[in-house]
């Protein structure tokens, strides 16, 4: 299997976003165009320079990108719509990266845009019943895992609340975030109880928004005159799907570890090299689990890494400086590209009061229902 490191280098040259928000009358085209125009402006290039586009969305309908791009001028670019559940934006980014890495295109766009729409899960059409009526609801799986870890490792509701308070507080400083209020541990604990010890503020919101990233080859960067120091290298791009459950580990957590290890290998880094990570914290327990599976904290010590400030901005490796899915939001199609937006700004040193000092290596990680896991490693050359 060819790896990204075997192909020609690919760089993120521009990122843009439309803020994530609760369901509204805003048209998806307005949100998508805002993100794409933001990315073009950030890169300092015009739309006709973009040779191909991958559009990640889950609830808009067929041919969303084609309709949206008509309003940017009919350049005839190659256009493909991607649906990979929560990882739709991440998958759009991966395909844009691989297309440039392979030499097929020099400049490619990935855009995620979504509305709270008619997302229908294919599992509902499988016609296979489950013993529990909540068996396909991820929140329940993770709430059960939190309960188990409470008994086995002393993980407390306060630990879960600490994740959510950190991410809500990070989001309060992020103009693109859906939630803009700093939250305390007490406020998180006192929000509506949902399942086990999981409260509503420990869960990501549903919403809408858009995010975009433009990737380019070194040839294109030279040709387009993009300033040195701004392009951010994509060093690894890995996607795998889960295998049958072994023992009591949640398959998506085991899968996340496998994907992270493959990504580290492809990028030639170790977990200790990571300065900033944007990870799939749809539920607070996930952040604790993934900091362990990604090797940021020893196994079983994720809550200590959190309590000691290891995942705070300015800590060993800041986790979800954007606010993550819990704070910045999780509109599905854009979510993975919102992570690329955050990491690109971190690695350029442009992230304002959410800046991780000296950030040079970052990882974006998403889980898509089913499950798939996808990771990208970005570096400042």
């Amino acid at each position, binding site marked *: 299997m060819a790896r990204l490191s075997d192909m020609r280098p690919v760089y993120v040259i521009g990122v843009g976003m439309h803020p994530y928000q609760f369901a509204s009358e805003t048209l998806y085209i307005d949100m998508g165009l805002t993100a794409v125009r933001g990315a073009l402006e950030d890169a300092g290039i015009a739309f006709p320079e973009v040779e191909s586009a991958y559009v990640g969305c889950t609830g808009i309908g067929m041919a969303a990108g084609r309709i949206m791009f008509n309003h940017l001028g009919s350049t005839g670019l190659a256009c493909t719509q991607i649906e990979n559940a929560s990882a739709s934006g991440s998958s759009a980014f991966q395909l844009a990266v691989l297309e440039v890495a392979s030499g097929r295109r020099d400049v490619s766009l990935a855009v995620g845009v979504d509305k709270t729409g008619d997302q229908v899960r294919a599992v509902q059409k499988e016609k*296979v*019943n*489950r*013993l*529990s*009526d*909540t*068996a396909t*609801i991820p*929140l*329940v*799986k993770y*709430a*059960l895992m939190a*309960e*188990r870890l409470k*008994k086995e490792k002393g993980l407390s509701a306060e630990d879960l609340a600490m994740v959510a308070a950190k991410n809500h507080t990070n989001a309060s400083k992020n103009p693109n975030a859906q939630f803009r209020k700093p939250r305390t541990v007490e406020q998180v604990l006192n929000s*509506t*109880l*949902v*399942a*086990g010890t999981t409260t509503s503020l420990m869960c990501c919101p549903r919403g809408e928004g858009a995010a975009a990233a433009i990737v380019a080859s070194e040839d294109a960067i030279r040709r387009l005159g993009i300033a040195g120091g701004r392009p951010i290298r994509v060093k690894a791009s890995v996607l795998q799907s889960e295998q*049958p*459950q072994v*023992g*009591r580990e949640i398959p998506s957590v085991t899968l996340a570890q496998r994907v992270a290890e493959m990504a580290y290998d492809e990028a030639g880094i170790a977990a200790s090299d990571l300065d900033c990570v944007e990870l799939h914290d749809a539920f607070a327990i996930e952040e604790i689990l993934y900091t362990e599976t990604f090797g940021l904290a020893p196994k079983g010590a994720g809550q200590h890494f959190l309590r000691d400030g290891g995942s705070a901005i300015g800590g060993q490796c800041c986790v979800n400086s954007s606010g993550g899915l819990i704070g910045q939001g999780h509109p599905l199609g854009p979510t993975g590209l919102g992570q690329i937006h955050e990491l690109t700004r971190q690695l350029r040193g442009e992230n304002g009061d959410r800046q991780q000092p000296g950030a040079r290596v970052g990882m974006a990680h998403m889980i898509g229902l089913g499950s798939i896991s996808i990771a990208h490693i970005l570096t400042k050359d």
Partner: protein
Amino acid sequence: MTALEKPDLYEIDGTGPALKLIFGQCAACKEQHFPHTGYGCPRCGARPEQVTPEARDGRATLLTFITLHAKLAPGITPPCVVAEAEIAPGMIEEVMLSGSAAQYRDGMTIVARAEEVERNGETVLACRFAPEEEV
């Protein structure tokens, strides 16, 4: 007689409320899986004709349980209790428990039984797990 809510997953075990769970037994890989479906063996990919349904005792070991406080799915009425249970060696499934969390502790034996629930205005028999001594 009241119909079972999910007859592809379980069947009445004798004359009482106890249920048997319907596993799939694969002739190709000799492995068992749950639930049995019409699609073949999820372990080795064998075609459906290689897999036969096999009803087994609905006894399980309770691993973890939580109370749901929100209506997360159309079929549930919170508060209710969901759990992870080992329904056969190495086979862990999410199940729904009868009654409240106070009746349960990790590691205890629970048994599948039929309980009446309302679905679309009709009464059907759903699978709920309960402490062994209650079944």
